[in-house]
């Protein structure tokens, strides 16, 4: 008993130590430097109202768009089998690993003024001006946000849907529900937990968007996150930066409370029966499946493909030069990183993060499943909503004494990645866990199963798919160094994204080509890892 409660407290302890403590310290230093609360910065906040409006507006739009595309896709994935389905699903997460600076370049190569699409259209219709003018518009910000978050929504919704019995759907159809009524009254309510969970994540993600907004939207667009960065880094105006961070956290808390009201208990118990996916039969079914495949290919894979093509294209056509150069230290410099070392570091951090996040995430999901602990739910989302710069400064001042002298330790890297990954793992596991019927557990107990046996033989198999989804995201977040800006002081443990940033910081075609090549390697390492993770599931708990 004590052990069980003790275990459930571990995630809280982790959060307290690595999130609330640093956050509190930096807020205290910023807002009450002399020990007295100084509120003069409050007067400056109203000037950020416009930024706030834009931040919320674009996040809502991005979330709505992402869900509007992901729900039908998830439905098709649940209902039908088709060639390449698993591959498509795995690869969809690839978008998530690329640094925004690389994605911005890929989109520019595709639909920029001089991009592939515009050049083709110009040649085709003999136009003098580029017909697709998306650069520096809200539209391109939204497109890239959907590009990044589509897989989040798809995987969470599909993971949930696939574990539901198809009987209710069939019954509803027999009873005469068709068209939008079938969707509105039956299907959407059935997946509401996954729907709201993924909506919350996508919202938070786009709410704190940084690189996409300034890199592709241009300087006219700014989110609160961008303002915090400018205030904290360029102007060193810590009180205003802290005030804006608090505003960010406050708004997120409000949103999360709203979300908790929306999220109710699922109507249906999760059974171990799975949706029976079948091959599409009629022409219209094939059409629907085809449409989804085309959507995913166009939205997710053409930008990635553009990167792959570029990494092999030199001035005189096909070349392997960029890949070869990656492992050459021509100038004998200390900044050089052999690709194998970068890959190794990335994998080491990503595996540690995955292990840590899955272990903590599972404990958190159990903690949140307890009646008295539900209110804690938004607390675990907060790290995702907190400005990376603010938290990074917090690490510097809070974690500077033994036994927690971690500010320059490599161990801080997976810890910080875990803070970001944890909400994903929790969001993935919680809906599945809460949907397990109490009668299932009770029956097992009546039949003499110990709590550990119930977990191992009943619950774990039922949530294994959700765990895999969470693990995939944890891995991806870490290997893509999502929120890399947290690390203010970094010992020399360069990862793949770090190498990409270093290369892009210098002029010259070789540097740019190598950065593209490294991005492709990053995607490849990730794709291979997804396959391995998927194998782990089938080899481990999944076949029950």
């Amino acid at each position, binding site marked *: 008993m004590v052990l069980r409660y003790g275990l459930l407290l571990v995630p809280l302890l982790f959060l307290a130590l690595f999130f609330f403590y640093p956050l509190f310290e930096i807020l205290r230093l910023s807002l009450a430097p002399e020990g007295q609360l100084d509120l003069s910065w409050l007067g400056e906040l109203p000037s950020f109202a416009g930024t706030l409006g834009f931040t919320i507006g674009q996040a809502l739009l991005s979330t709505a768009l992402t869900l509007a595309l992901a729900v039908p896709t998830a439905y098709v994935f649940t209902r039908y089998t088709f060639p390449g389905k698993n591959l498509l699903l795995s690869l969809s997460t690839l978008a998530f690993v690329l640094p925004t600076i690389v994605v911005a370049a890929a989109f520019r190569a595709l639909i920029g003024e001089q991009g592939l699409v515009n050049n083709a259209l110009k040649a085709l219709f003999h136009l003098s001006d580029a017909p697709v003018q998306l650069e520096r518009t809200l539209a391109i910000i939204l497109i890239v946000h959907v590009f990044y978050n589509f897989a989040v929504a798809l995987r969470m919704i599909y993971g949930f849907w696939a574990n539901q019995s198809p009987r209710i759907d069939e019954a509803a159809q027999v009873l005469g529900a068709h068209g939008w009524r079938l969707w509105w009254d039956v299907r959407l309510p059935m997946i509401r937990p996954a729907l709201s969970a993924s909506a919350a994540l996508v919202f938070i993600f786009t709410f704190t968007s940084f690189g996409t907004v300034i890199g592709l939207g241009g300087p006219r667009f700014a989110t609160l996150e961008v303002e915090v960065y400018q205030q904290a880094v360029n102007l*060193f105006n810590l009180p205003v930066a802290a005030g804006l961070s608090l505003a960010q956290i406050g708004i997120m808390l409000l949103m999360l409370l709203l979300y908790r009201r929306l999220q109710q208990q699922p109507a249906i118990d999760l059974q171990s029966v799975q949706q029976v996916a079948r091959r599409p039969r009629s022409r219209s079914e094939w059409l629907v499946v085809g449409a989804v495949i085309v959507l995913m290919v166009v939205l997710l894979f053409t930008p990635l493909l553009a990167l792959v093509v570029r990494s092999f294209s030199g001035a005189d056509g096909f070349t392997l030069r960029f890949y070869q150069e990656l492992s050459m230290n021509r100038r004998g410099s200390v900044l050089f990183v052999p690709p194998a070392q970068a890959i190794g570091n990335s994998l080491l951090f990503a595996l540690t993060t995955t292990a840590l996040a899955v272990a903590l995430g599972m404990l958190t999901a159990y903690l949140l499943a307890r009646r008295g602990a539900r209110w804690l739910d938004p607390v675990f989302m907060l790290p995702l909503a907190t400005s990376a710069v603010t938290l990074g400064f917090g690490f*510097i001042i809070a974690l500077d004494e033994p036994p927690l002298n971690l500010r320059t330790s490599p*161990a801080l890297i997976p810890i910080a990645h875990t803070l970001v990954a944890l909400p994903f793992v929790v969001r993935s596991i919680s809906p599945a866990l809460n949907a397990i019927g109490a009668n299932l557990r009770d029956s097992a107990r009546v039949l003499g199963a110990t709590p550990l046996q119930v977990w191992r033989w009943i619950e774990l198999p039922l949530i294994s798919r959700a765990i895999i989804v969470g693990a995939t995201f944890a891995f991806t977040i870490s290997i893509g160094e999502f929120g890399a800006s947290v690390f203010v002081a970094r010992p*020399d443990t360069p990862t793949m994204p770090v190498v990409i940033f270093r290369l892009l910081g210098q002029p010259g075609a070789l540097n740019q080509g190598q950065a593209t090549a490294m991005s492709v390697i990053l995607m490849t390492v990730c794709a291979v890892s997804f396959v391995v993770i998927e194998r782990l599931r089938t080899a481990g708990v999944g076949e029950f």
Partner: protein
Amino acid sequence: MKILGALFVVLLLIMPAAAQDDNTLTLVTHDSFNVSEDVLAAFESETGITVEILRSGDAGRMVNQSILSKSNPLGDVLFGIDNTFLSRALDNDLFLPYQSPALEGIPESFILDPEYRVTPVDYGDVCLNYDVAYFEENGLALPESLDDLTDPAYKGLLVVENPATSSPGLAFLLATIGVYGTEGDYTYLDYWADLVENDIRVDDGWETAYYGSFSGSAGSEGSYPLVVSYASSPPVEILFAETPPETAPTGAIVAPGMCFRQIEFVGILNGTDKVEQAQQFIDFMLGLEFQEDMPLQTFVFPVNPDAELPEVFVEYAQVAEEPAQVDSAEIDAHREEWIQAWTETVLR
């Protein structure tokens, strides 16, 4: 799950804790610091000091976190603070004074702190780069002053970086402030209003501007033939070309008043117990070996006039003739105000 758990424990065990022995000197620096392995190794074997490099983001973030941690510094010596952030660091007592004997012979103009709390190491000029082919094909003369850029002949040709998010962007803003001033009939803001009138493009950072909007770089896909970059970018463009071109694809415009000079400094962090080792390191940074190594590693110019420049620099790099001047203390006092006024004028 067990596998993952065991893996995690193993990983935690093999992760090296930040090792601190008596003769390790921790150098806090920005992400783009670089040096040849053998040059650094020579210093280490000569002195017996091991140099550990701690990278802390861009220059601004590095300075801020050093200020935040000044009661318990992250390292022993800090390199890479420039004149735009200098007074913020000095006001916060970040450094211990040290007058290196190696400063002899370094031009006075680089020594911005008379108390020697920081030592100049290198400099770089932020200047316009141009697409050589574009100007040749269109028979267009190069702009010779900031004034020229408001000429309709250069309409829609220039891309600059946002000074709020980019260091060269800020440097170029400072150049305009140095030339037009903040008071009088025609201030820097009037000048920027004219630039906006002339359809300049503003990007968030150097990477986006140089690779995304500028047309001159071999790898870029933009259509703007003028970009705010560094005077040393053209030789680097050649150094990292796929095949060395016969003529340089880009050039720098270094006419009087068109550039801003960034000087990088090194200082001993207040609170270190390795003052002596830190002093040795500073002497080393001013020495010929390090000074001659810098141009090809970090694409900056050495402050030591005796240092010989590499061939590609001699041939393709230029030095600003009369860079615009803005006092370092002024910069820190007005940075916010200037950037905000700029934002109001250019972006709103």
